[in-house]
């Protein structure tokens, strides 16, 4: 009964009645999260109609005019939007390009590491950056990378490698590289866990067989480990592809400054600046809707592809 294997007998109603008498408590429990998502999430959806209005905060929904697709036409002609969209896509793709292989390589290295205590200790250390906020990471980065007072620049000057401090965080091209690498660094340890878990699941006999066949270490990685974690790799790759329209406001905000605005100006920043800071609610909502919808389509698309490839879906 607990598992509710309800049998369809003629007295269907009665059966349902018994079912609910036995299980009403489950629905009462479910009511709490349902209320939470309705009040704090679903209740925000009607606000999306702002995207099709010329919304004036002072007039509210009732007093504001409907304008149809005008706002969207405007944003697609808006240079700022083009820049934000281009930056978002470019940086998310680059993030994926550099960020995807690193956890895999790290997992392989950790798996090959022979000294168990050392391994445990280094793993603990490598997961640490994942638990620090972007504010802290960016603040520490400033201490390392400021042109005049940053430790890295000081050391390189002392070693005589450079004359002037390198503007790691204050010139847009340098910033792009630093920003991307710090992102990779922050996620590499945590990202490796999932691959280590997959590697742990590999049948030890495969390795023994490979050893008997005379395979060396690299050969075993290439012919046993990598093929065995292929599924995990594909799933994660597709899942990340589904996120290329997303954005991490905190990371961008923490690393932002006037000198790097050209590249730091991405969709999340656009929405924040036009919307909350600039009170252009309709335009910010329209861009947000665009971002959410394309994001949803990408996720659905990746799920479909992933299932077609015979991997587990995401949904």
């Amino acid at each position, binding site marked *: 009964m*607990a*598992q*509710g*294997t309800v049998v369809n007998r003629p007295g269907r109603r009665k059966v349902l009645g018994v079912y609910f008498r036995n299980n009403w*408590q*489950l629905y009462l*429990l*479910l009511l709490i*999260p349902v209320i*939470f998502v309705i*009040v*704090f999430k679903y209740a*925000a959806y009607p*606000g*999306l109609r702002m995207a099709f209005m010329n919304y004036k905060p002072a007039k509210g929904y009732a007093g504001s005019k409907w304008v149809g697709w005008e706002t969207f036409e405007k944003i697609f002609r808006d240079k700022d939007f083009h820049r934000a969209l281009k930056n978002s896509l470019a940086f998310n793709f680059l993030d994926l390009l550099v960020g995807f292989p690193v956890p895999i390589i790290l997992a392989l290295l950790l*798996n*090959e590491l*022979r*000294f*168990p205590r*050392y*391994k445990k200790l*280094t*793993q603990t250390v490598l*997961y*640490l950056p994942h*638990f*620090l*906020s972007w*504010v*802290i990471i960016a*603040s*520490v980065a*400033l*201490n390392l990378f400021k042109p005049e007072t940053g*430790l890295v620049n*000081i050391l390189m000057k002392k070693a005589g490698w450079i004359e002037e401090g390198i503007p790691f965080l204050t010139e847009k091209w340098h910033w792009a590289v630093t920003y991307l690498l710090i992102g990779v*660094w922050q996620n*590499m*340890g*945590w990202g490796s*866990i*999932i691959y*280590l*878990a997959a*590697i*742990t699941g*590999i*049948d*030890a006999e495969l*390795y023994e067989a490979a050893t008997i066949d005379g395979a060396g270490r690299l050969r075993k990685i290439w012919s046993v480990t990598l093929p065995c974690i292929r599924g995990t790799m594909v799933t994660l790759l597709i899942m990340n592809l589904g996120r290329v329209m997303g954005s991490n406001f905190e990371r961008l*905000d923490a690393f932002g400054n006037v000198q790097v605005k050209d590249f730091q100006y991405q969709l999340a920043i656009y*929405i924040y600046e036009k*919307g909350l800071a600039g009170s252009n609610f309709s335009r*910010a909502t329209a861009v*947000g*809707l665009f971002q*959410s919808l394309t*994001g949803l389509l990408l996720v659905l698309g990746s799920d479909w592809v992933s299932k077609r490839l015979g991997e587990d879906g*995401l949904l």
Partner: protein
Amino acid sequence: MQNTTKAPSAAEKKPSIWTGVNRVRISDFVIAFVILILSLTCILPFLHVAAKSISSNTAVMSKAVYLWPKDITFEAYASIFRDGQLVHSMFYTIGITLAFTLVGMIVTICAAYPLSIKGLKGRPFFAFFLMFTMYFSAGLIPEYLLMGDLKLLNTPWVLILPLAFSPYNMLIMRSFLSSTIPDSLYEAAKLDGADHFQILTRIVLPLSKPIIATLSLFYAVGRWNAYADAKYYITKKALQPLQYLLSNMVLSSGTDAISLSENAAVVSTPEVLQAATIMFATLPIIMVYPFVQKYFVKGAMIGAVKG
């Protein structure tokens, strides 16, 4: 995590790891060295900032502080405590974090337990209804206006309630429940006349202690680190959480400006004071981190199994 499938390594079989088929090779040291370098990148930056924060002004100005403090002084920390702003914010943030974790766990359990029961009528619908918001959000402005309508702007509640239900954590909890708690246990409890509340509180929750610990930590760390929602929804200084305060003090000011009040009687240079501020906000995490780290890994693995 600790025991790799590969070669139950020679280290465990008593004979020396320096001889035999599984002996340690040069490549082992190369790997260990690469891992060492990567690990150092995760430690040294913080060591540098920590060293700076307890060094004298002159030592820092003459750029002589690397990883070890020079002319140790705790003056910068003293002025942080005299000022009181950050200390207040720290306690406030701890309070918010605890409340958020508690509410989050209650809501998550209330969702995960029913959804882990196979025969629940309407299960796919409820699952979809609760998960949908993860894939499609209304966006910043509609949510901002909603918080306004709910009268939550500029209250601590705006940091506690809206994010309390995390679909992702719910998924982890649900897959834990459906994989670890055998159906036979429910059957037995049913036969003994237990209802769902009793099963939940007397059987399921005691068996779920590890996952409850893990998810509580996920919630707590998430709340502790997040500051975007504070930036959107809170303008009153006294209600801003620590990370947001830190971002205002160290990042937004652009130059080295940092604002502690007059009676903090600051003698440290901005450089040192900033380092101390950063350490002040980082130390709580670094101190608890080693002890709770293993729970995180467990959670990540369960999460990994179920995407």
